[in-house]
């Protein structure tokens, strides 16, 4: 139950994108089409979950015993880079179209703050192993969820009579703003 609540909270209440401001670049960049959004969402979700587990382990068994906490950023980011690179190559090999679509974004998962952010937040909040894993997983689900919804809305916006200056990124940001207003409805839960 406690874990369910944690999951719910990380997905909705403290949504990575909309209330924690993490992972915004891919959120804005890869959400023009639904299919790409789903692809990116899933890729990120995978990396996010895996790396939050790995970084927990690294922190627990390498950094803390040796009192090297100040190296956590470097260590985590390296871990993430490895996970991403491996994912990238597997995708490249198995689904060239997905690869071409995700294009520059796959390596950019490395620099998706959500991934590093979750790892750091896990340390900051002193989460244990299961909590860290859930936190990573929930964050990933939340990220994918809003990304997919955002993409469907953006597809619809494509034909809307948006004032010229607001076409493209601005109206997408406004939409993200309203989405985060909507998600504030979950505020105060759990």
């Amino acid at each position, binding site marked *: 139950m406690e874990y369910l609540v944690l999951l719910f909270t990380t997905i909705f209440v403290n949504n990575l994108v909309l209330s924690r401001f993490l992972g915004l670049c891919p959120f804005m960049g890869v959400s023009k089409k639904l299919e790409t959004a789903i692809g990116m969402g899933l890729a990120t979700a995978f990396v996010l979950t895996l790396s939050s587990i790995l970084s927990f382990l690294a922190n627990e068994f390498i950094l803390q015993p040796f009192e090297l906490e100040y190296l956590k950023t470097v260590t985590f980011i390296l871990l993430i880079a490895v996970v991403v690179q491996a994912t990238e190559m597997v995708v490249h090999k198995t689904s060239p179209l997905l690869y071409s679509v995700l294009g520059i974004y796959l390596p950019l998962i490395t620099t998706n703050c959500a991934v590093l952010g979750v790892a750091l937040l896990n340390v900051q909040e002193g989460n244990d192993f299961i909590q860290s894993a859930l936190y990573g997983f929930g964050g990933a689900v939340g990220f994918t969820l809003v990304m997919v*919804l955002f993409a*469907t809305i953006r*597809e619809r916006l494509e034909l*809307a009579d948006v004032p010229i200056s607001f076409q493209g990124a601005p109206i997408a940001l406004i*939409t993200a703003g309203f989405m985060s207003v909507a998600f*504030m*409805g*979950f*505020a105060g*839960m759990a």
Partner: protein
Amino acid sequence: MSNPAGSSPFIPSSSSVTKVMMTVVLALLPGIVLYIWLFGWGILTNLILTTTFALLFEWLMLLIRDRPVKEFLFDGSAIVTALLLGLTLPTLVPWWIPVLGAFFAIVVAKHLYGGLGYNTFNPAMAAYAVLLISFPLEMSLWSAPLVSQPETLGLLESVQYSFTGSLPTGLEFDALTSATMLDHVRTEVGLGKAVDTIEQADVFGYVGAAGFEWVNAAFLLGGLWLVYKKIISWHIPVMLMASLALISGACFLIDGSQFINPLIHLFSGATMLGAFFIATDPVTAPTTSLGRIIYAAGIGLLIYIIRIWGGYPDGVAFAVLLIGLTVPLLDYYTAPKVYGARAKYEKS
């Protein structure tokens, strides 16, 4: 060769956006009148402010965007938006709240998206939510029903309060307001009190919140008329009420000392307004029957979740906005089977 490009049909459509919107306005009237009757002139002040400024902003935006002013200004949609926004505001609020609300609804939520028909978010609700998170204090001070106020404000006094923030001498603001029923329940349950003792409070009426139950009933009536006039389809209001009743009923049955009964949920807060006038906003609701059913059921569920566990006493606005995010998906995946598609399926 007067019109070589013309394409049939050559019979003009008998309905028009203006007609649709004006029907909605008419359907709102009984509720509005009763609301004013029970809760005071402040509501009228709000409605006038939102409507005036909504039209003003609409006009400005049309000018800026170089769109035909006459047709769009008189399509009536801005008026519906303004009325719904006005109706969701607390009775006594400073003037800039309705004005800012009208700005957010018309300029940001509607015209930045392309105006009538293109907006992704329900303008009235988007504006309401923005106001609520910006001014939680002002937005959560609700008037008590007139009958339980020692003294009441006249029309002029309400206007005066709205613009200057000053009340007639000798009147305390606290005397005019009270926690709403939903708020009260939240607070008291939070203190560990049992529901049946809470229900003794005078914020409760016969079936719902005192006063609000009548307003809700009036909106229900107006809404039914809209269904009859085929302006809205039954799916949304019925499913919304059904899902709200179902989940609140379930919780009530499980633990009647913690949860209030479903009838109260249906007849308090903005339930009826939401079910018949807000969730039904054609632009932001799905267009397929199945989509509408899922949408409305989702809204009912979320209203309950937010009312009970969320930070805000009423959840209609957030529920509508949240489920609204899924509308494009719903629209895509709930397309009805076309004529003959089933036959084909059977054949194969």
